[in-house]
C-alpha cells in the first residue's frame, strides 16, 4: 500500500518531467499545488491562457490499479479464479438498465447478490459502483440518472449486509460510454452500473 503510493508519486514526477520537456515551456507557472499535492492522486493539467501550454501533473491511473473508464479488467480479476470463471456470477460486473430507469432487472439480481456475499465475507474489500447513462438528454441530468442506478445497486447490496464503507458511488452519466454508436444497441450497453473492485 505504502509502496504503491511511493511508486505513484515517483511515476507522477517522471511524467511531469517528460511533459515539460515535450512542450515549449515558456512559463509553466501552475498553481493549485497545495490542493493537489495531497494523496498523490490524479491531477488534471491546467494552462494559463496567456502563457505557453504549461503542463502540470498528469493524470495517472497507475497500471493495474483499476484503469480508467470502461475496462472491466479491473482489480477483481486478480482476486481469485471465481472472478474470471464465466460460469460464476462474480465474473459479471456490469448491471444494465432500461431507458430512464434505475430499477434493477431480475436477470441481474443474482449477480448483485453474488458480489454482496463476497463483500460480506471479505469486509476489507471495497468497491466503486460507477453509474452510467446513454447519450440521450442533457448531460447533468444523466449524471443524476447514473447516480440513481448506482444507488439502486448499492441499496440491494446493503440489504444483504454489505457495509456502507465498503461501497463508493460515482456517476459518470454519459461521459464514459462503453459503446460509441448512436443507436439502440449502443444505448443499451451504456445504461449500466459497473462494479469496480478496489485494490486492497
Amino acid at each position: 500500500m505504502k509502496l504503491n503510493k511511493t511508486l505513484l508519486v515517483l511515476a507522477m514526477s517522471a511524467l511531469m518531467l517528460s511533459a515539460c520537456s515535450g512542450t515549449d515551456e515558456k512559463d509553466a507557472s501552475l498553481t493549485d499545488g497545495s490542493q493537489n499535492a495531497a494523496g498523490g492522486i490524479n491531477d488534471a493539467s491546467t494552462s494559463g491562457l496567456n502563457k505557453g501550454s504549461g503542463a502540470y501533473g498528469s493524470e495517472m491511473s497507475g497500471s493495474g490499479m483499476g484503469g480508467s473508464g470502461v475496462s472491466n479488467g479491473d482489480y477483481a480479476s486478480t482476486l481469485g479464479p471465481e472472478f474470471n470463471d464465466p460460469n460464476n456470477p462474480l465474473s459479471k460486473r456490469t448491471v444494465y438498465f432500461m431507458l430512464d430507469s434505475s430499477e434493477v432487472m431480475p436477470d441481474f439480481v443474482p449477480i448483485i447478490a453474488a458480489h454482496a456475499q463476497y463483500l460480506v465475507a471479505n469486509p476489507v474489500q471495497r468497491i466503486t459502483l460507477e453509474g452510467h447513462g446513454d447519450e440521450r438528454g442533457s448531460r447533468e441530468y444523466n449524471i443524476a440518472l447514473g447516480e440513481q442506478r448506482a444507488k439502486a445497486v448499492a441499496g440491494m447490496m446493503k440489504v444483504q449486509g454489505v457495509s456502507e464503507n465498503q461501497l463508493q458511488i460515482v456517476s459518470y452519466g454519459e461521459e464514459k460510454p462503453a459503446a460509441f454508436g448512436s443507436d439502440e444497441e449502443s444505448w443499451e450497453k451504456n445504461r449500466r452500473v459497473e462494479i469496480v473492485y478496489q485494490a486492497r
Partner: protein
Amino acid sequence: MNFFRRILLIGLFGFNVPIGHAALTIEITEGVESAVPVAVVPFASQRAPVNISAVVNADLARSGYFKMMNEQGMPSRPSSIAEVNFKDWQGLGQNYLVIGQVTDAGGGQYNVQFQLLDVYKNGQLLGYRMTSSADDLRRTAHHISDLIFEKLTGKKGVFSGRIAYITTNNQGSKQQSHQLQVADADGFNPQTVASSVEPLMSPSWSPDGKKMAYVSFERKSAAIYVQTLATGERTRVAEFPGINGAPAWSPDGTKLALTLSKDGSPDIYVLNLSTRSLNRLTKGFSIDTEPAWSPDGSSIVFTSDRGGSPQLYIVPSKGGQEKRLTFSGDYNARGSFSPDGKSLVMVHGNGNDYRIAVMELANRSINVLTSGRSDESPSFAPNGTMILYASKKGRTGFLSAVSLDGKMQQKMAFNSGEVREPAWAP
C-alpha cells in the same frame, strides 16, 4: 470634418498560437432570405499577416444578417472614398460597402483603417483608424465586424467574443484525453484551459469572463473547480460525497449555483464563493439539477423529475416557493435565460429526438429551433441573437449555432475529436 477617430486596441491576451490556426471550420447550413447585401472590398494591404477584410467578410456572413458579395463580381477595388463609384455598386444591388487599408507602421505595428459606406446615400456611416500589433490583427478584424454589425443592426456584435467547449481526443482508447478549451467566436486561437484523461464537464463563465467553473473527474469522483483563465490558477470549491455538478455563476459573480447529492437525491444549492457557505434551495426525493440564474439574479431555473418526467421549475435564488414552468413535451431540461430575461432556452425531448427549444416566459409558448436527434447544451450569445449548442451525427459531436427565430443555422465542424458543451463568454 473629423471622419476618423483614433482608437487603440489592447489585446486581452497575447496569444502564443500561430496566426491562422483554426480548430473549427464554420459552414452556414441555412441562411436568411432577407439578408442585406454587403460588399467587403479586399483591403489595400502591405502584406499584413492577417487578411483583415477576409475575416470581416466571414464574420458578417456567419451572422446570417448579410448576403456578402463575391470578390470576383466586384467592379473595382477602392480603398478610399474618393475611389468609389457609387453608381457601379448600386447597379449590382449592394446596399453597403466596406473599404479599408492596412499599412505597416513599423515595429510590428499596423495601422488599420476602414469605412462603412451607404451605397444609396453616397456617404459614410462609420469610419475608424486603429493601431494593432501583428498578434492582435485578428482581434482587430473581429472588432471591426462588431462595429459594422452594430451600426447596421442596432445590436451589439459578438464576433470578438469567445466560446468555451469540451473536446475529447482518441475517444475510447487508452490515450483518451478530455480538454476544456477557449477559442475566439469563429473557432480560431483555441487555448486549452484544463486537460484530463477523466471527464471534464459543464464549463460556466464568470460574469466578467475572467474565470471559469467546471466539473472534473480527475480524482475519480466529481469535483467543481474555479479557474482563473489568465494564470491557470484554480481552486477546488466543491468535493462532497456524490454529485458535484452543474455549476452556474450568479450574475454578480459572488456565488455559484450547483447540484449536490450529499444529502440524498441531487438538489440545488447556492455556494457563496467568499464565505464558502451553502444554501440549499430544493429538497425531496426527486432529481433536481441544472440550475441557471435569471439575469437579475433573483431566480434560478432548474430541471426536476418530481412530476414524473424532467421539466423546468423556478425558485427564488434566496430560497422559497418552487413553481413548474414547462408543461408541454415529455422532456424539458437544462434551461437557461436569454440575456434580456424574457425567454428560456432548453433541451426539448419528444420521443427519441432531443432538440433545442425557446420558451417565451410571457406566454409560455415553446418554439423548437433545431431538427437534430441529439441536440443539447444550448448557450445564448451575449447579444441574444444566436444560440450555440452541441449536436451529434453518428459518432461525431460538433457545435452548431441557430438564430433565435430558427431561420439561420450554422455548423462549426471540428477538425478532429468530439466537441461538446459550448458556453458563450459573457
